[in-house]
């Protein structure tokens, strides 16, 4: 797999990714309330572990915007920003999230992340983008703000802060934002974030040389204390952890879930692009190991990042080697760039975060999901509102609940149709195999009916009189506890029509699954009809549902001879009276 | 790259002799060149271990000094009976630890012991002092004497030592290994002592001992001797000497000013603090 061309492509992609990650790492660490060196640690070690242990070959891990916001809001009530206690809590969170993710992976529960609705994720990410933009406006202006407040208080703070704003900081930040936007528009292939940083820093240095550093008065990032192997460990000791455990334990779950939602989305997106088969449980395991191991090397929680994975793929990365190369590139870059990073103005970093936040609000995705279904609009609005006002953690829980409800709602809509008259004819069994029934699987219902009808007419069969008042109940989909109520509604309607005395043929050819509740519903109906002397017939595709029907007693009530099965092969011209 | 280098040499040099050398080099394969270079480095590296420690050119002086310190020499008595066999000092007779001290410091102290107090060859510095406006402390000196140090035993002993003796003894004692045994004191004494050692007495303008004598009292350079590992009685006795004016061989009258601001309790506290520290010197 690793031949020279692939290695070369990987090296190029890795170097590009390593250069790209540098401004984001610092910005996202500051967003999470941590000193910038922790962003760099998190861009190095978890990336290695996720690349080596994860299943996707193109997904790149590292600090994540939504997780950083979540960490900041979670730890804020328990420690002052960037203090040693804050850092310790972040590392402990990484450990806990890693444990949860590893457990999910080992229990092969990775598949549940396929069930999260796309709308919820898009709404979450849009909300995070808005939060980032509002929270960074203070840094952009060079004004100290209290961002932990609810957003309706943050906006007046921003407005009042405009009069106190440091004009130079706004100027430098605006230059950075403008250059980033222009680059993204005209030269989309270039890594626009790092070039915007360089432009911003050059501009600020020019301002300072012309006017004097302390006259310009830009807040700077400061010298980072980097160490080659920054060992750390999660701290669960009672005196340090007990008071914060109430907030941190649920937050660890949210972080684990949010990270895995994004990771699974990205892994699947990369799989579609590249054609690689993804083992979602392995991916979950890789993310868990990266967080778990990262907590021992001073890393805060991280997960796959969509823009880095996409750019990695587009730069030609084909194997996890590109992730490893990016790690090495970043390490080398830090060694040389650390003295320069010390002089990065904070408004440049805020501008970078504004660009990142604006990039999270993807208009095309939002439009697509809103136009798809009516209920998507409702879900989107709800989750967006709860993200901005309640915080990302509440929004994630809420989103999980909404996803489950939406999924159940969709799953519980079996198609139930009542057919009478001519449409019902093809379900009539005959003692002789005169009526030929098409046994092929036809996707469109009309086609089936038409062809059978034609055949009926060809053979010129007379319809027996006793089947005049017969109704066919066609059930497609799943009949389980969640969808039983629909069947109940339909049967009630039917009872109103024919008084409970007509014959009933249940066509379960496209019935995918039936559980005991559904079977009991049918049993109830069968009992009521057979009491009045009506007949009940049952058409099934195969013997898969026999166990359930047997145990519920349906077969006994209906009678074994009244159950018909379709044969699998297409050219059978007679129905089999098989039980 | 080696090939390119050799090519360059080939182009520049024109004589036959160089060409044959170059052609010989060119005929060597790349790997053998690398191997040759590596073996040269290996040889140099190994030679360092084969030869004895040639970096220590003080060894002969140290040996002579060891002889002198342990056994004495004729009239000169040995140092070890009072200063300890390992130079660790003796608390009962207030004799200082000499192990690990800076050799220049030992030499200067021996010279000061040997100096005749009445014939110090004082040097008057021609600085115009303006005495009109400012009150000064008495401690300042326009006259910078090299100073003398009074001790009944050491004054005679030091006079017997020649310059070479002083050098040898200094080298020997500076290379001795010393590991302090911390002694227990009650916490109030230690707290007060630590306060003096780390913060001094701000209201008196007394600086912290560690600000010149190094963190942990480990000493700094040849001028500021270590306080850690010195016997308690020695430190107290020396402060008393500064206060009594019997010792004035400090630079810039620094210690005299400082000693004049220490009470008896302070002396005990700070000496106890330094006696309580773990400290080692020259130990690998």
């Amino acid at each position, binding site marked *: 797999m690793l031949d020279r061309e692939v290695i070369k492509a990987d090296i190029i992609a890795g170097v590009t990714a390593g250069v790209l990650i540098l401004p984001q790492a610092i910005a996202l660490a500051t967003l999470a309330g941590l000193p910038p060196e922790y962003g760099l640690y998190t861009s190095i070690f978890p990336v290695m572990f996720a690349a080596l242990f994860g299943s996707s070959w193109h997904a790149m891990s590292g600090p994540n915007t939504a997780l950083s916001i979540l960490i900041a809001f979670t730890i804020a009530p328990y420690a002052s920003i960037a203090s040693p206690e804050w850092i310790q809590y972040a590392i402990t969170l990484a450990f806990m999230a890693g444990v949860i993710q590893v457990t999910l992976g080992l229990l092969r529960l990775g598949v549940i992340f396929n069930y999260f609705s796309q709308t919820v994720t898009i709404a979450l990410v849009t909300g995070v983008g808005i939060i980032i933009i509002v929270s960074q406006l203070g840094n952009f202006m060079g004004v100290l703000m209290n961002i932990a407040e609810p957003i309706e208080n943050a906006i007046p703070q921003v407005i009042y802060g405009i009069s106190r704003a440091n004009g130079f900081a706004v100027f430098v930040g605006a230059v950075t934002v403008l250059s980033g936007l222009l680059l993204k528009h005209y030269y989309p292939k270039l890594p626009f974030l790092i070039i915007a940083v360089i432009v911003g820093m050059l501009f600020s240095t020019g301002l300072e040389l012309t006017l004097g550093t302390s006259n310009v008065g830009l807040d700077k990032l400061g010298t980072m204390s980097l160490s080659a192997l920054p060992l750390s460990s999660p701290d669960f000791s009672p005196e340090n952890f007990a008071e914060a455990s109430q907030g941190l334990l649920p937050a660890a779950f949210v972080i684990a879930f949010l990270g895995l939602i994004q990771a699974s989305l990205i892994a699947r997106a990369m799989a579609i692009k590249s054609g690689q088969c993804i083992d979602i449980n392995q991916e979950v395991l890789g993310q868990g190991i990266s967080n778990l191991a990262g907590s021992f090397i001073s890393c805060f929680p991280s997960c796959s990042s969509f823009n880095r994975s996409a750019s990695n793929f587009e730069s030609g990365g084909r194997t996890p080697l590109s992730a490893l190369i990016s790690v090495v590139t970043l390490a080398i870059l830090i060694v040389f760039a650390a003295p320069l990073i010390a002089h990065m103005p904070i408004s440049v970093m805020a501008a970078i975060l504004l660009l990142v936040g604006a990039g999270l609000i993807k208009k095309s995705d939002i439009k697509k999901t809103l136009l798809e279904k009516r209920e998507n609009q409702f879900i989107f609005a709800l989750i967006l509102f709860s993200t901005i006002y309640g915080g990302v953690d509440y929004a994630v829980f809420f989103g999980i609940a909404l996803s489950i409800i939406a999924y159940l709602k969709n799953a519980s809509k079996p198609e139930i149709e009542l057919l009478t008259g001519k449409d019902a004819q093809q379900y009539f069994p005959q003692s002789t195999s005169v009526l030929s029934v098409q046994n092929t699987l036809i996707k469109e219902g009309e086609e089936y009916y038409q062809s059978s009808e034609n055949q009926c007419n060809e053979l010129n069969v007379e319809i027996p009189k006793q089947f005049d008042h017969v109704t066919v109940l066609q059930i497609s989909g799943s009949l389980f506890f969640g969808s039983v109520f629909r069947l109940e509604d339909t049967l009630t309607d039917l009872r109103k029509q024919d008084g409970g005395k007509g014959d009933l043929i249940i066509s379960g050819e496209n019935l995918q699954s039936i559980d005991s509740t559904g079977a009991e519903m049918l049993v109830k109906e069968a009992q009521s009809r057979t009491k009045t002397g009506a007949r009940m017939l049952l058409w099934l595709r195969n013997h898969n549902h026999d166990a359930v029907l047997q145990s519920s007693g349906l077969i006994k009530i209906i009678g074994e001879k009244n159950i018909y099965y379709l044969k699998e092969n297409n050219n059978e011209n007679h129905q089999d009276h098989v039980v | 790259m080696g090939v390119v280098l050799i090519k360059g040499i080939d182009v520049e040099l024109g004589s036959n002799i160089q060409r044959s050398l170059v052609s010989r080099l060119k005929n060597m394969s790349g790997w053998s060149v690398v191997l040759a270079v590596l073996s040269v480095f290996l040889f140099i590296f190994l030679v360092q271990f084969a030869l004895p420690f040639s970096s220590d050119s003080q060894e002969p002086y140290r040996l002579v000094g060891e002889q002198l310190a342990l056994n004495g020499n004729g009239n000169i008595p040995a140092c070890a009976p009072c200063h300890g066999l390992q130079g660790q000092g003796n608390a009962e007779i207030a004799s200082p630890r000499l192990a690990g001290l800076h050799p220049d410091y030992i030499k200067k102290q021996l010279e000061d012991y040997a100096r005749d107090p009445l014939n110090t060859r004082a040097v008057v510095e021609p600085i115009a002092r303006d005495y009109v406006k400012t009150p000064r*402390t008495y401690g300042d000196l326009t006259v910078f004497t090299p100073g003398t140090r009074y001790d009944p035993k050491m004054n005679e002993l030091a006079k017997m030592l020649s310059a070479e003796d002083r050098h040898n003894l200094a080298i020997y004692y500076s290379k001795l290994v010393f590991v302090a045994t911390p002694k227990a004191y009650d916490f109030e004494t230690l*707290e007060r002592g630590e306060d003096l050692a780390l913060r001094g007495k701000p209201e008196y303008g007394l600086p912290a001992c560690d600000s010149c004598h190094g963190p942990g009292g480990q000493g700094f350079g040849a001028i500021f001797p270590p306080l850690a590992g010195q016997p308690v009685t020695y430190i107290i006795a020396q402060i008393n000497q500064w206060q009594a004016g019997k010792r004035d061989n400090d630079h810039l009258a620094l210690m005299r000013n400082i000693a004049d601001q220490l009470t008896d309790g302070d002396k005990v506290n700070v000496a106890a603090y330094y006696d309580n520290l773990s400290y080692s010197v020259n130990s690998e």
Partner: protein
Amino acid sequence: MKWIFLKWVLFFSFYNVVLSVAAQEIGQSLDSLEVRPSLVNSRLSLPTQLTQVHVISPGEYFAPPLVADISDDRFGDMVRMGRNIFINTDVYAKRYAGNGLNCSSCHLQEGRKPHGIPLWAAYGRYPMYRHKTRTVVTLEERIQDCFIYSMDGIAPTLDAPEMKALVTYTKWLSKGSPVGVDLPGRGLPNVSRTQDLDPKRGKIVYETRCELCHGKDGKGQKHTNGEGYIFPPLWGGDSYNKGSGLQRVRTLAKFIKGNMPLGASFSLTDQESLDVAIYIWLQERPRNPKMSWAMDFFFPNMAR
């Protein structure tokens, strides 16, 4: 006319008599506690001129709390962190410090020494109007200025943990000090010149009194393990920059007069302090952040 002359003679002689009596009186009026042993016993070295003793009596200055009394809770942790930053700035505030100095290099003895810019005298005066910035500044903003100029570094943001720690330490050190009052021992003592300042005399003073600790080239001396300075650099790349308060000759002279040589405060005369201050002022140090590059290039020593 005669009476005026006689009045002058009488006054003059009376003045002399009073002075001589006063001189004797001074020697006898010293409190017995103030008499130090070396005054009483004869000294081996040449005798010095005994003049009026400038005694810093212990009852006069504010006494900050002891380090052993820092409480064991979160507040105490913050105080300890602030103290660590104060005495070991280039390690604990590495993010913002730009040179080899510590806060305690100038705010002597961990910010406790009277006449050594003590912190306890400063805390109660902030927020104050500062002529340098023409605004009312808070303590945090003042500390920011310290980082920019004296530490030649980057100013911490007002919400940085290092800033919080330093303010907490300052507050703890000032525990019990009155607010808004000019305490004795605040800042630096006064100096006044008697002659024009001469850097050549200052060089002699530096070589005889300062070089022993601060090094021949003014670059200070580093600890034996190479980390940090035991005697801070007075000029050169690792010292304070040209925007610092110590770059004013008068301020530097006041500092030297009241604190240097270490342990021998007030041992230099005013003129000596001023001379050595101008000698130090003339040396090279990092550029003033308030100056643009062009101004600094063409007018390197221009006052702010």
